[in-house]
């Protein structure tokens, strides 16, 4: 009889001991699109977070404790982020939240973090409304008024384009915002938008021939497609098969290895703005690229270093705050100045956004070519 009981009791004791050990960890919650139509965003930014966490923990952690990441997959779907973040805060007792890349999904989770007074750091949501939700919401990337301007400027100065067409993903806050800022700059600087069409992204629309046929008739010199990579790849293919030869332009939503896989040679020679180029010779960047390749056996895209920087800045803020208390960590985050991140020097401004420069890359199926850096 005795032996029957000893094993479960011993097991229970081990479980209790382990869980009390784990309670020492600082829990950081992360929600990311690990699956679904923007899966590479979530997977790669998550890889970046993981790499940063490992480095922080190997160097002794923060406040003498290790950081533990709890990741929730939001499946690239609306409705999932709020459920994920509620769970992370209520049940995992996360002291801070990292996420998301897609602005629509960050916008969904942000009010929950704000309400709970848990700081949220978005690695890559560029729509300005994200941090406007409240003073607990931060980001480590530039915002769309800047990014839209960069591409409009690029179209005018580098491509000498006077007439452009725009194809917007209307289901996507990021795409709608980028369209607005691109148009503002382009039309006030001598350009003309000759055709504007829209589609529903996130795997809903796969046929864009109707919109592209209408765009072709307007004879633009470039087409701005501020969507995500899956659609951009398909749009490029269909545009070329309809005989449209002008370059397509995009934003950081294109930054994924899948872009060239789906778009093939059709998307070669098109341009997009993003946060980082792995070809940048800055030692900080090269060091990151080597570490990333060693761990994940893949080339990092723009989302990976953003995840890395988000985690690093958060660890830095917890260190400065000297506590995991949400309000104190928030205050420390707001004070960050000239942090030397992989994606450039990060200064959190009064609107809790990072002011940073953008790079323009030219799509090339082997490895995207670096074209220009545009400072804010």
């Amino acid at each position, binding site marked *: 009889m005795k032996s029957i009981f000893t094993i479960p009791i011993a097991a229970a004791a081990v479980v209790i001991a382990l869980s009390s050990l784990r309670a020492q960890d600082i829990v950081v919650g992360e929600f990311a699109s*690990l699956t679904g139509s923007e899966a590479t965003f979530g997977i790669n930014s998550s890889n970046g977070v993981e790499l940063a966490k490992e480095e922080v923990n190997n160097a002794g952690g923060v406040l003498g404790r290790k950081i533990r990441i709890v990741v929730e997959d939001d499946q690239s779907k609306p409705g999932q982020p709020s459920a994920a973040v509620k769970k992370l805060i209520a049940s995992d007792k996360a002291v801070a939240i990292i996420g998301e890349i897609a602005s629509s999904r960050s916008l969904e989770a942000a009010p929950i973090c704000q309400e709970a007074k848990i700081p949220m750091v978005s690695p890559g949501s560029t729509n300005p409304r994200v941090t406007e939700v409240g003073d607990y919401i931060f980001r480590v990337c530039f915002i769309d008024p800047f990014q839209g301007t960069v591409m409009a400027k690029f179209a005018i100065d580098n491509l000498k384009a006077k007439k452009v067409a725009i194809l917007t993903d209307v289901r996507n806050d990021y795409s709608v915002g980028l369209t607005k800022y691109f148009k503002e700059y382009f039309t006030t600087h001598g350009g003309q938008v000759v055709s504007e*069409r829209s589609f*529903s992204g996130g*795997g809903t629309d*796969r*046929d864009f021939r109707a919109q592209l*046929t209408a765009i072709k008739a307007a004879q633009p010199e470039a087409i701005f497609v501020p969507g995500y990579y*899956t659609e951009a790849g398909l749009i490029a293919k269909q545009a070329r098969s309809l*005989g449209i030869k002008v370059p397509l332009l995009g934003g950081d939503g294109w930054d994924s290895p899948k872009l060239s896989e789906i778009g093939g040679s059709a998307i070669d020679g098109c341009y997009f703005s993003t946060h980082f180029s792995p070809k940048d010779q800055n030692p900080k960047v090269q060091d990151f690229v080597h570490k990333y390749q060693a761990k994940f056996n893949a080339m990092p895209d723009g989302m990976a270093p953003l995840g890395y920087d988000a985690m690093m800045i958060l660890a830095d803020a917890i260190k400065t705050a000297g506590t995991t208390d949400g309000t104190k960590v928030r205050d420390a985050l707001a004070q960050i100045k000239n942090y030397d991140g992989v994606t450039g020097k990060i200064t959190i401004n009064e609107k809790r956004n990072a002011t940073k420069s953008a790079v323009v890359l030219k799509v090339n199926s082997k490895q995207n070519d670096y074209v220009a850096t545009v400072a804010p």
Partner: protein
Amino acid sequence: MTRVEFLQQLINGVSLGAFYALIALGYTMVYGVLRFINFAHGDVFMLGAFSGYYLTPRVLPHFPGAFAPIGVAIVLLSTMCICAVVGMTIERLAYRPLRKRPKLTVLITAIGVSLFLEYGGQFVFGPDPKAFPELVVDRPLEHTGALTITTTQVAAFAVTILLLITLTFIVKRTRLGRAMRAVSNNATAATLMGVNIDTVISFTFALGSALAGAAGILYSISYPSIDPLMGLLPGVKAFVAAVLGGIGNIPGAAVGGIVLGVVETFVAGSRFSTYRDAIAFALLIGILLFRPSGIFGRSQVEKV
């Protein structure tokens, strides 16, 4: 809109509609025989795409140069066989045990099967979108002037017409087709006449699923980004196309698909591209208000 643009949009619409038509044929056949909507049909379409994804790099290298069409045919036919088997298995395991139950039970089971295939697919194939390999080079045809028609657009349309004719032939002229019609008309009477209902229903599912498999391949050549949830929307659209044409009616499904494709394309090409699906579906509701049984459907009088 210029004449060229109008004709180009018409071509775009018909070729998009051809895909809806291909999927709709499967819906309509199962409905015709069993009076039940197989919601898992769109997911069999997805399995067809993935079968093509895995078979192409394993089959095509063995058929270089001029032999490539043989390789393409092998990929297409084996995919159709795989999907036929999947369709029969689904029917055998999920629907047959419920045949005597109310139709609603089977309908809900079909939704369950659909979710099982979608999320099982996420588990097995991985959830991220994959680039479909280049089975056929999708290039524009020559000598079409200002219009562009690509090889896959022509292929999709041709395959749809071919399968439509084959299906009509099978249903109208063969013994099995006659049995299908008999089961559709009155299953009990058909049994009394010596028709093996199980065989007929299995065959119907095999045929419908093989069509979905073929559609999956053609669709993926045209839109080379595939994921386990890709069947959802084309499935719904094809279902609407089948209803529009008159569910249970084979030419109706084809016509319904093409009408839907053309309407969608013209809306998407206009300034109202945001409301593409809203306008397309509003139009369908309009058509169904005036012809409740669809374009080709016969209005049925319930006998008391």
